[in-house]
């Protein structure tokens, strides 16, 4: 009798599972995060010669307030702050300058041209239960090092499509993990910590050294570009992307400014 009831329940489940067809795989938008105040990782120095693209990034409207972070579960992180820490979704400087924008040459670099990645690793550090830097770049093939300065468990999960995703743990301060290099360009690889849901960082993986991250005053510089016409893309975690076309001839410096709209 019992068996029969279970088989009824079971077949109902199967029937339902097999017959209903409305899919919705709406994924909630990943809540973005924090940005550091220190200098974003500079791309590998390229040939001193070549052209330069520099500019300033601003936004119009009112920047959304960064949510405060409740670190009560992690006293060791909380103690690193004198005021309540916040996420770093929108880091704004004076006069609506916008930091943490990843600016890169999206197209225009000849496809056959190969760039040797630096052997020095790009380092991301976990300190005060936030990532430093918050937005940064790395070249395909360049070593990637993850450090933990917090005496608490962090896991570092990379969410990637063109590259292999991974998820490794660092339970205490002083741990250093060097990951196998990224194998394909990808803007962006998302890094997150599942122990601390507020921790997010964004990593642009590029095949060339022509990328930069805007500073607190909104400025960025990409140098060493050979002559050519380039599509430049500026990526921001909250405000999306913008592009510009810039033509470089010789060793000149061209300006490309971007203005995002804060909703």
């Amino acid at each position, binding site marked *: 009798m019992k068996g029969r009831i279970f088989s009824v329940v079971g077949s109902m489940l199967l029937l339902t599972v097999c017959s209903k067809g*409305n899919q919705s795989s709406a994924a909630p938008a990943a809540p973005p995060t924090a940005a550091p105040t220190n200098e974003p990782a500079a791309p590998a120095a390229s040939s001193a010669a070549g052209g330069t693209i520099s500019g300033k990034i601003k936004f119009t409207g009112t920047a959304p307030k960064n949510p405060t972070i409740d670190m009560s579960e992690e006293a060791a992180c909380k103690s690193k702050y004198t005021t309540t820490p916040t996420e770093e979704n929108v880091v704004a400087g004076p006069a609506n300058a916008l930091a943490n924008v990843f600016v890169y040459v999206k197209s225009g670099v000849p496809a056959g041209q190969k760039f040797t990645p630096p052997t020095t690793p790009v380092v991301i550090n976990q300190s005060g239960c936030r990532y430093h830097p918050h937005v940064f770049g790395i070249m395909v093939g360049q070593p990637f090092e993850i450090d933990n300065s917090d005496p608490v468990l962090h896991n570092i999960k990379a969410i990637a499509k063109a590259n292999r995703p991974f*998820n490794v743990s660092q*339970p205490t301060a002083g*741990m250093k993990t060097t990951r*196998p290099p990224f194998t394909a360009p990808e803007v962006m690889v998302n890094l997150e910590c599942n122990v601390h849901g507020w921790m997010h960082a964004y990593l642009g993986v590029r095949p060339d050294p022509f990328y930069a991250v805007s500073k607190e005053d909104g400025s960025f510089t990409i140098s060493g570009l050979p002559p050519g016409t380039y599509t430049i893309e500026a990526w921001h975690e909250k405000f999306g992307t913008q592009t510009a076309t810039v033509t470089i001839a010789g060793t000149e410096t061209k300006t490309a400014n971007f203005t995002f709209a804060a909703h």
Partner: protein
Amino acid sequence: MEAEDLGSERGGGGQQVIPALLLLTLVAVQDTTAGKQVYTKWCAGCHGDNGAGDGPGATHMIPPPRDFTGAIYQIRSTPSGQLPTDADLLRSIDEGLPGTAMPGWKTRLSDRQRRDVVAYIKTFSSFFADTTQRPQPITFGSAPGGGSGAEALKVGRQFYDSIGCRKCHGDQGRGNGPSAPTLKDDAGHPMFAANLHENWRFNGGGTVEDIYHRLRTGLDGTPMPSFSDLLDQKFLTDEQLWRLAQYVRSLSPTETPVVRDVIHAPLTKALPHAPDDSAWSAIDDYWFPLVGQVIHKERWFAPAVSGVWVKAVHTADSIALRVVWDDRSQSPDTAWLAHLGRVFTALADDSAREQPALWPDQLAVQFPVSIPTGMERPYFLMGSPNAPVYQWRWSSSARTLATAGLARGIDRFDPITGPGGGIATQAVYDAGEWRVVFTRALASPDTGNQLPLRTGRAIPVAFFAWDGSNGEHGTRMAISTWYFLALDEPVPARVFISPVLAMVLTLGLGMLVVWRAQQKTSYRRQQ
């Protein structure tokens, strides 16, 4: 095993004329064609025609079916970030993933079919064709001995704390750690930290070896990271990581619980009213599995409570029934609201979408209104309008009194307003577990509706559970079928006296025979 290897098995000899490379290519194509047929018939319903984990069944599952296009697999023998081996993929197909909707296929599909399907699902991602991405399995050692000893478990527990397992899995391992409500997979689907007390539901298997392997490889695509780096950096030794695996294993019962149909309630002098009364430790524990209610709308495919542990005891005039179940949240709890939103989004059902709200945890114990005389019992799913069932309904929002009432179908519960309407309860929520004791007199004020409990009879009983923080209320619940409760009868005095009497009589008779025999012998000698 590579597709080409599989093909060469099939290709056999007799094709020497054709260059080997061409043969292999041809056979590989055949393989994925065969695999596609199997896949389309058996797998696509959940995993989708294009392997994106978006088949028609996907919207009823937490966790969702694997999306093969990203080649991200939980159960591997390789380091985090690497592809699985063919043997890894075959293992998940053969054994299924316990605790999820994925069944094992070993007995349903032939060896060839399962291998073909492995070859086919690899075609959904270009990573498998990339020769720079060859999986390199980790060489796992074997578990050190003495794993169930107190000293070993102490070491394991020490590392459970120091490497932060408790952050997600909770202090006692019931998946209720402070970070548990925030967990998501890569696509934003809600994820649960495993309840480490139910090793028969671990996705990758419940042995010490399985647990150790998961600690080394992590479960890619989920929040569970790999802990291999800790060995490389000498944060702990391999033996200590094994000890951790042994500790985790020790949290679950030695054997997977089996269902025993009849709860025996022994007779006692004094009822234990408190859930943690020491008297309970001497009473036999019975486990009953619960499943999602998928018969009536609103149906529920993601029940949080997978089973209940039940003990019962009675005195001459009263009964105490203790129900214990794992629940990762003490509802209502605002910390789980965002998680609940993700659950509702993932289960885009045919029912109307609901807004997350603060519901309590609930448990119902169900009996017939009177002890049936024959085999006939009311409908197990809360009776029917003409044949109601008698229930005790407990809620975390009124912990000390359960409501007795009559259910007349899944959506109608009429509380008893007069005598017998309240059932005394005592409840404890502790580290991810509810322990609730119901007590009631055996006699009832309304023998037609409020089941009089009698000894020596098989009394049908069933259980229902709701985890409010998982969105469970109304028809969205976990259900059991009918089982039985038997109140042991007092043992009559003759049971103790009769054997003694029989022994004395036997002994006496025996001695008499011996005495008579000796008498005769001595008489003959005298003659």
